[in-house]
C-alpha cells in the first residue's frame, strides 16, 4: 500500500483529497445536522450531478477541449442550487422542506436528460455516482485543498455566529448577527464541499459523509466543540478505512467509506447503551 502510494500519483491525489474532505464534510455536517437540514446535502449533491452532466455534454457536443474538469461545472451548479433552495424556502414559508425535493428531483431529471444527450452512461458516470480512487486529478486535488482551507478559515472566523444561529435564530438576531448573510455563506460552503467530495465519495453518498459521523458524535459528545472534534475524527477514520479497503477490494470508495461510517455509528450506539447499563449497575 505505502509503496503504491509513493509510486502512483492517482493514489496520492485520492488519498489527500479524501483526508481533506474527511475534515470539512463532517465539520459542516455538524451545523447541518443540528439545524435539521440534513436533506439539503442530498439535494445539493444531486444538482451537482446535473452540473457534471452539463459539463460532459458541453465537452462532447460543443467544444473540442477534452480536458475540461467537470468538477467546476458541478460546483457552479451546486452553488446555484444552494441559492435557489434559499429562494424557495422563502416562497414556501410554512413548508420550507418542500424546497428540497423540488431541487433534488429537478436536478436528477435535468441530469438524466443531459447525460443521455451526452451518451454518458458509462464508467465515468459510475465513478461520479459512487466515487473512485483513480479518477481524482492533481488539478482537482489542488482545488479541493484551496476550498478546504477557505472553509476551515471561515468556520473558525464565524464560529460564534454559526453557533448562535444554529442554536437560536431569534437570539442570533438580537445579538446583531446577520442571519441571512451567514446562512448564505454557510450554504455556499456546503455546496462547494459537496462538489469537492463527489470525486472520492460519489454523488449518491456525499451526504452520508456529512451526516453519519455527526450522528455518531452526538450520541457521545456533551459539548458542541466535542461534537465537532468527534465528528471529524469519525469522518476521517471512515475515509481512511474506506479508501484502503476500496483499493484492496477493488470496489468504489463511496461504498466502503459509508459502510465504515455506519460501523462507527453502530459502535457509538452500543457504547452509549453499555455506558448507560454500567451506570445503572453502579447505582444499584
Amino acid at each position, binding site marked *: 500500500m505505502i509503496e503504491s502510494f509513493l509510486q502512483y500519483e492517482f493514489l496520492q491525489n485520492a488519498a489527500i483529497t479524501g483526508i481533506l474532505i474527511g475534515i470539512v464534510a463532517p465539520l459542516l455536517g455538524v451545523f447541518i445536522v443540528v439545524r435539521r437540514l440534513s436533506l439539503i446535502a442530498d439535494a445539493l449533491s444531486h444538482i451537482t450531478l446535473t452540473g457534471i452532466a452539463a459539463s460532459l455534454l458541453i465537452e462532447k457536443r460543443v467544444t473540442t477541449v477534452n480536458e475540461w474538469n467537470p468538477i467546476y461545472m458541478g460546483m457552479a451548479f451546486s452553488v446555484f442550487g444552494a441559492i435557489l433552495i434559499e429562494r424557495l424556502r422563502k416562497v414556501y414559508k410554512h413548508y420550507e422542506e418542500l424546497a428540497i425535493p423540488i431541487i433534488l428531483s429537478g436536478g436528477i431529471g435535468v441530469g438524466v436528460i443531459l447525460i443521455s444527450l451526452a451518451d454518458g452512461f458509462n464508467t465515468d458516470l459510475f465513478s461520479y455516482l459512487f466515487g473512485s480512487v483513480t479518477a481524482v486529478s492533481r488539478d482537482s486535488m489542488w482545488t479541493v485543498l484551496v476550498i478546504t482551507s477557505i472553509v476551515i478559515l471561515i468556520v473558525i472566523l464565524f464560529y460564534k455566529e454559526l*453557533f448562535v444561529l444554529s*442554536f437560536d435564530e431569534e437570539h442570533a438576531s438580537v445579538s446583531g448577527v446577520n442571519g441571512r448573510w451567514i446562512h448564505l455563506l454557510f450554504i455556499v460552503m456546503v455546496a462547494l464541499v459537496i462538489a469537492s467530495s463527489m470525486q472520492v465519495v460519489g454523488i449518491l453518498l456525499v451526504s452520508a459523509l456529512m451526516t453519519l459521523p455527526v450522528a455518531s458524535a452526538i450520541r457521545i459528545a456533551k459539548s458542541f466543540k466535542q461534537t465537532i472534534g468527534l465528528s471529524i475524527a469519525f469522518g476521517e477514520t471512515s475515509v481512511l478505512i474506506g479508501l484502503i479497503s476500496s483499493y484492496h477490494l477493488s470496489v468504489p470508495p463511496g461504498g466502503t467509506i459509508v459502510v465504515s461510517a455506519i460501523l462507527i455509528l453502530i459502535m457509538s450506539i452500543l457504547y452509549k447503551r453499555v455506558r448507560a447499563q454500567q451506570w445503572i449497575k453502579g447505582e444499584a
Partner: protein
Amino acid sequence: MENRTIVKLENVSFKYDREWVVQDVNLDIQSGQFLGLVGPNGSGKSTLIKLMLGLVKPDHGSIHLFGQTLKNYQDWQEIGFVSQKANSFNSGFPATVIEVVKTGLVSRIGAFKFFNKKHKEKALEALRVVEMEEYAYSNIGELSGGQQQRVFIARALVSDPSLLILDEPTVGVDAKHVTEFYDLLGKLNQEQGITLLMVTHDIGTITEHATHVICMNKTVHFHGASEEYKEFSEEDLNQLYGHSVQQLTHNHTHHEVNHND
C-alpha cells in the same frame, strides 16, 4: 441618574395576517424604570416585544432604541432578552450550558474575534447569579424546564445589558427561585440602574416590584406608575380581560391616556 428615553414607539401597528395584533401603540420607556407588561393571552405582548427588537417589522409607525432607528441600531450588547419560547430549542442539541450562556456575549465581542478565558469567567459568573454554576458543563437539553429558563436568564445577563427585556421569564421556575429572581431584578434595577421590561401574568407580584405597569390588549390601555395601576378598579380589569376589545375601547377611552410621568 438622568432619565432618558431608551425605547420609543410611535403609532406602531402590526398584523401577521389580516387582523391587527398590535394597534396604534405609543410608548415611551425611560432609563431606570422597571416596567411590568400585562394583558390577557393573545393581547399582543410578545408581538410588541418582537417589534421593539426588530424580530418583526411594523406595518405602520416608527420604533427607536436608545435614540436610534431600529434599522440603524447596532449596540445589541446593551439589550438582554429572554424570549417566551426560549426553551423551545431542539432539545437534542449537543451543547453545554456554558456554551449557551457564552452566546449572550456574541454582540459584545463583535465580529472576527474569538471567545476567550475572560468570556468563560463572565459566563460562569452569570450562571452563579442564577445558581446554575454547578451545571455549567451539563448538556443543555438534559436540564429541567425551569433550570433551562434560569440558564436563558443568565444568557441575557451575561453581556451586562442596560435594558433587559423578559417575556414571561419565570414560567416553570419554582417559587423559591421566582422570589430570588424578583430580588435579583430589584437589585439590577436599583443598584445598577438597569431598565427592565417584563411580561408577566402575575399581576399581584409585578405591581409589588415594578415601578410602572403597561396594560395592553392590542393597544395600550394603561401606562403609568404601579400605585396608580393598583387603583385601576377590579371592574376595569375584568372588562379588559373578559370582553371584546371593541366594547372595551368604547367604554374606557378615558383609560387610554398615557399616564407616563
